[in-house]
């Protein structure tokens, strides 16, 4: 074990999979030797694997995904980077109508082993076009899988699994996570898609959180225990497939649930998780489902404005107290 960052963990996953399978290659804007990825995730890969396997592209999001899809259906395993998740809008047809649907439309004749990595999320004051959390859009598209790693360990293990998966996987990397550190094994390991991780066990309330909100929820749980409230923090780790069982089991134990996500509240990830709880565990609830999410605005620029709309420890603690008392 050694301590590495989320960024390093992702890079290790890419490197190990590129060494393991020569059909794996990376493409995207400025991923190559000159810029090394907007968040430096691909640093060193072009030098090691050559420019063709770490392919810089024109600023053409639609074609990045289209080209990756065309390569995926003809024997390659591309890992495409969309520099900011917000820009997936430019590639939406290729993601949602092409990559996601080709296998189905063609009656199972093909597979689309494609990973789309997307730095995303708020917190660095770059406003409405570079800060959104769009996971919910993609969980609504059958054919896509959606990974949302919150830690270096999970990021590495999930990215390796995503690259080996024969379906298109949307891989969300919150930009505030890149520099967090954790002990990660040197030895080979993977993390399966569809298995949640209980990041902290507790008895009084279940907090389901994703991505950067896992860390805020863990900080909130630390504060809550001082006040006598024991919170269980669950990180689904992937939204498609979603490990409903772990969430439902926890709710049956605690009788209370707070869902914490950074995306917009309406039609968001938290709405889907709420629906799962309503369908499968409503009889076990001692309080209404509570959601802490972005209040349906674009992400504003000015620091106090941005801080106001993004969930934080205080908002989580407030929500937990509402359901516990």
């Amino acid at each position, binding site marked *: 074990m050694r301590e590495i960052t989320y960024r390093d963990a992702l890079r290790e996953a890419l490197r190990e999979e590129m060494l393991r399978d020569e*059909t794996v*290659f990376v493409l995207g804007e400025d991923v190559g030797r000159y810029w090394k990825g907007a968040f430096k995730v691909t640093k060193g890969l072009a030098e090691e694997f050559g420019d*063709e*396997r770490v*392919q810089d*592209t*024109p600023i*053409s999001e*639609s*074609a990045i*995904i*289209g*080209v*990756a*899809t*065309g*390569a*995926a*259906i*003809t*024997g*390659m395993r*591309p890992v495409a980077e969309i520099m900011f998740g917000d820009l997936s809008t430019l590639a939406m*047809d*290729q993601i949602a*109508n*092409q990559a996601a649907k*080709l*296998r*189905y*439309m*063609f*009656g*199972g*004749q*093909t*597979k689309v082993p494609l990973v789309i990595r997307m730095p995303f999320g708020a917190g660095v004051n770059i406003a409405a076009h570079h800060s959104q959390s769009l996971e919910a859009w993609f969980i609504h598209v*059958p*054919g896509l*899988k959606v990974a949302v790693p919150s830690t270096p360990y999970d990021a590495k293990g999930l990215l390796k699994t995503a690259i080996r998966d*024969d*379906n298109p996987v949307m891989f969300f990397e919150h930009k505030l996570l890149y520099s967090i550190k954790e002990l990660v094994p040197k030895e080979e390991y993977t993390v399966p898609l569809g298995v949640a991780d209980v990041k902290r066990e507790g008895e009084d309330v279940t907090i389901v959180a994703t991505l950067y909100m896992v860390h805020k929820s863990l900080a909130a749980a630390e504060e809550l225990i001082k006040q006598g409230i024991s919170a269980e923090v669950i990180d689904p780790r992937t939204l498609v497939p979603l490990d409903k069982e772990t969430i439902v089991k926890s709710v049956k134990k605690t009788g209370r649930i707070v869902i914490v996500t950074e995306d917009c509240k309406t039609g968001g990830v938290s709405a889907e998780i709420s629906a799962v709880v309503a369908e499968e565990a409503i009889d076990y609830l001692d309080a209404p489902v509570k959601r802490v999410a972005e209040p349906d605005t674009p992400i504003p620029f000015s620091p106090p404005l941005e801080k106001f709309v993004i969930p934080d420890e205080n908002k989580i603690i407030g929500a937990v107290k509402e359901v516990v008392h």
Partner: protein
Amino acid sequence: MTLEKRKKIEMYRKLLEIRHFEEKVYDLYGQNLVPGTIHLYAGQEAVAVGVCANLRRDDYITSTHRGHGHCIAKGAQLNRVMAEILGKKTGYCKGKGGSMHIANFSVGMLGATAVVGAGLPIAAGAGLSIRLRKTDQVVACFFGEGASNQGTFHEGINMAALWKLPVLFVCENNLYAMGTRQSRVMAIENVADRGVAYGIPGVVVDGNDVMAVYEAACEAVERARSGKGPTLIECKTYRHKGHSRFDPATYRPKEEVEEWMKRDPITRFRARLLEMKTLTEEEADKIEQDVAAAVEDAVKFAVESPFPAPEEALEHVYI
């Protein structure tokens, strides 16, 4: 260029297969046997046949909503294409795709996309895959002149040109995008002129002359296979029917339709084959009779095939 006799006869047969096939699809639609809608390829056969006659089985094509002809020209079986159009379990896509989304990966037909222009980057991606796998395959990407106004046209061709990928971008300019005449949406007459913007050859050919298409594609395939990159081939052609089944195509002037019908690609090629004594009248008739019988067999196969079980709708979302 002298083409061997066998190849010319093969092309003639393919032209007829597509024409007879499309006429049957039209009839079956009238009998309520075809769910949804159809976009017939009749009139444009020389494009698919002229291009695909240059391709090997392991070469790829991408196709469009008007794709029956591409599929057949690349070597798909008539009966399974027909079955797909009728929504049957025996169709290439097991009834999941239908007329607008047929694929047959076993012959390198990577599928039709019904989103106009979406196939261009996918074809470029197949080209990138060929480059990375170090094979000498090529990709032919079919699309209409309407698709050339999509961003994907620009993005896809730019990348393919930049990386010198082995792709033929084959624009079938049938003058109308649904009801919109080209001159109403483009300030230029030739889509091929756009090739210069990407640093690749842009060639205009008579898309109703299968030999002309063959020769242009032959050159482009050689260029692609030898690592010199893509070519944009614009085939000027015309659809015989409306955009889709219920379109009477009243937006097209009568004289224009008549003029194009005189340039029917199959009538012309037959006359040429007879003139060159490649075929006799009797031999040409015999081929047509054989093709008609094969299409009848395909119809019988498709009509008699079962529909998929309803719950098969849940299969193939994920692998």
